[in-house]
């Protein structure tokens, strides 16, 4: 088992931007980004579902790429630009957010921040994803309510609108 005392890192403070705002962190640098966002910045849209990169609920963008915030330690984030669901679109009208609402995707809604963040990256890199593209991009995201068929449909609807 790890030694929590030795593991605690207190190097120089970490400076990063979150949703465009500059932030500094000088706590235990083993802290995953997830808990920094939630506990230190009160950005609670990013969710904890498993803590081990198995569910996708905590997905954010780090320097434009999707990342599981439960796995990204603060020590690795100096100078990084982080975008969370709160910062995806200024008025919450990213084409995916709009499509999600048109199709009434969410049931409980808990997994949806992570799903939308992952899908946003998919559409950036692949504006017209096939069913297979969607399956492989989204397979790391669990929705226990079972909204998968609607997520597929919403991604396609948003892709169509963007094109």
């Amino acid at each position, binding site marked *: 088992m790890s030694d*929590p*005392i030795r*593991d605690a890192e207190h190097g120089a403070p970490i400076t990063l931007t979150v949703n465009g705002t500059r932030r500094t962190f000088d*706590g*235990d640098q*083993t*802290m995953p980004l997830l*808990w920094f966002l*939630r*506990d230190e910045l009160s*950005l*609670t*849209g990013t*969710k*904890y*579902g*498993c*803590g*081990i990169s*198995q*569910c996708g609920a905590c997905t954010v963008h780090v320097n434009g790429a999707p990342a599981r915030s439960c796995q990204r330690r603060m020590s690795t984030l100096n100078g990084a630009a982080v975008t969370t*669901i*709160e910062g995806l679109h200024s008025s*919450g009208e990213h084409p995916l*957010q709009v*499509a*999600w*609402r*048109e*199709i*009434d*995707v*969410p*049931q*409980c*809604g*808990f*997994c*949806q*921040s992570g799903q939308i963040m992952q899908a946003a990256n998919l559409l950036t890199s692949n504006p017209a994803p096939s069913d297979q593209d*969607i*399956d*492989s991009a989204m*397979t790391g*995201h*669990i*929705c*226990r*309510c*079972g*909204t*998968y*068929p*609607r*997520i*597929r*449909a919403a991604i*396609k*609807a948003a892709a*169509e609108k963007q094109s």
Partner: protein
Amino acid sequence: MSGRDFLPWLAASSAADPALGDASDSVAGASLELSHSASGESGATVNTHRRDFMKLLGLGGLVIAAGPFGARRLEAADRSLAPGAEPWDPHAYVRVAEDGIVTITCHRSEMGQGIRTTMPMIIADEMEADWAMCRVEQAVGDEPKYGSQNTDGSTSIRDFLGKYREAGATVRALMEEAAAKEWGVAVSEVSARNGEVVHTASGRTRGFGALVATARTIAMPAATRIRIKTPAERRWEGKQMTSIDLVPMTTGKGVYGADVILPGMKVAVIARPPVWGGKVVRVDDSAALKVPGVERIVRIPETPPPSAYFPLGGVAVIAANTWAAIKGREALKITWDGGPNATYDSAAYKATLQASVRQPGKAGRAVGDVPSALASASRKLSAEYYVPHLSHAQMEPVAALARVANGKVEAWAPTQSPMDARNTVAQYLKVDPANVTVHVTLLGGGFGRKSKPDFICEAAYLSREVGAPVRVQWTREDDLQNSYLHSVAAHRLEAGMDANGKVTAWLHRSAYPAIGATFAPNVPGPQPDELTNGASDIPFDIPNMSIEACQAVAHTRIGWYRSVNAIHHGFAIGSFVDELAQAAGKDSADFLVSLLGADRSVDLSKAGLVAPASNYGASWTDHPLDTGRARRVVELAIDKSGWRSARLPRGKGRGIAIHRSFLSYVAMVVEVEVLPDGTVLVPRTTVAVDAGFIANPDRARAQMEGAIIMAMSNTLYSEITFAQGKVVQSNYRDYQVTRMRAAPRVVDVHLVPSEGLPGGIGEPGVPPAGGAIANALFAATGVRVRELPVGKQLAGWMARATDSEG
């Protein structure tokens, strides 16, 4: 192109009322965040009932509440507000303010089923409200005020539809009478329409808000004036409606259990006994206390089994943030005494359950003479089935925030049952429930886990110990290893058929540790009446039946999980019927239809069910077993699924099953594709549902989509096992659930149009799915799976014989 065009199976049936497109959007955009303000109440001895009414009245406007004895206007002089008055029992509250804003109090918890949309849309429709002016407010836990708030058993609409409608219709009548009085015209000349009352002859209109002052003072409308709308008059009920929480849910603004923040709040992560009934022997917390951010270690006393809703106890790490609390717990060195359940082992227990179903049990339903019918049958078949423990594994692990100060407890939690939470916290802390307030956040999935308030008690206990607000955060590992699990179950079925393949005898024995064992000592197994949850209430036409409950002792906390025992009953019965069809050499669907027999409406309490002959809380008069409804959904599913079309090639197959549960009838045809390595994909599922009147069809479809996907998890992947009394699995890595790739391409849901009494929607889609999936796998591969999960059992299927032992 509308987004819905990408759901071809929805597009045909989702035509929205064109009148409400904009209005519903503006509700979606309205501020619907949960109120988290502190109540600031004082005076512990004030009658809380009276206090709450007074608070509502203090807000001004017109308040209508509907309960079992009709709808009333709340007034300062209300008899029910006098000290010592009989408590009155309203459930639905509607307030119309002078500015026209309509506030509807939702007394049920939102966990993905859509009740925060469905309840207001029923009331607003009956009121003739302007949807853009409607707001939803979440009720705190208060049973005297709101009636049962326990959001389980798929009861929100089936128990409350009539009251919601009556509340709305009363407001409408009152508004019409107020306008008629103001204008000096006959009430028959005016009508409410979209938030205002119209006098057609003169073209005058007046908004609901402007009518509030008069509506508060005139006499209440006569009972004959309170008229529920005809189906043709409805604007929203039964139609496509946009859910109201979509904006917060898609922008990260929805407030769930762990999202409530109070100043000075601490975070606690708790090491709980890994074995049910286990105890802490020794704790070395020196390393934990050195973790930066860890502030205190607090012992929570263990609750011995049956621990019911109380916490398991253990060692809590109190920290400044969640990460420190998690690391602090990792650093604890605890010696546990497992106690008597430390020998619980799933492999051994499976053998115990199987032995149990090979002995006669206690009859839950007895019809005719099964032994003689079996003896004289021309063909006999028997099979045994096994379903392991399952966990809800809802995406949001439980979390709760509590603040205990000055003898008052205030908690914020994703609870399915705020009233149970309030009462249990009060019992646990030994305070008066009047001093406990439980606010309900959104639930990140519930599925039954969040009916149990143990985690809320933990937060309250720790807040009192620490003297600060405390949020208890369960990790995913905690969620899987210290939950209230779905019962493990074994089944034995025997049947006899005559020469024509008609089933003449049916013996069904099931053994599973009972939920009752979580609440009472020495519970030897399920009560015979519990078999009404999907085993003794089957719709089949069989002259000789014995349905028996066999012994099984619980060694872990057992709880409700979406559709409860109907999960394993449905799997066993659905599979066995298919096995009988194969044995009889008949098409599975034809066989199922003939097994239902001629259409009958049966009061099962007079057809062999033992007392009390439960019927999901309803009477057998209101909700008899109606085999015609069962037959019609089966035929609908056959018809829409393409069952009769050309046979699918090897590796693909369809399976069918029907189940009545929670007063609804659901038939399902699942089409599977099994890859050479045994991976199962589901190209298509056809679901036919007769749930009586369905208020919100889109959410009903969503529940069916979710039900098949959750049933795929239950059937194909998920399993909780025990070794040395402890749960073996720890996270989604080894507790696997359905993911995107395997999820159905198409879920084609057909809702039978009906004005009948509503049945449940949230659960009834699960029970038929297990059997339908297993039957489809058999059709595709020739492998009959009798023990769940399917897991790797299909590996190498292509090399195996095409027929199993039968």
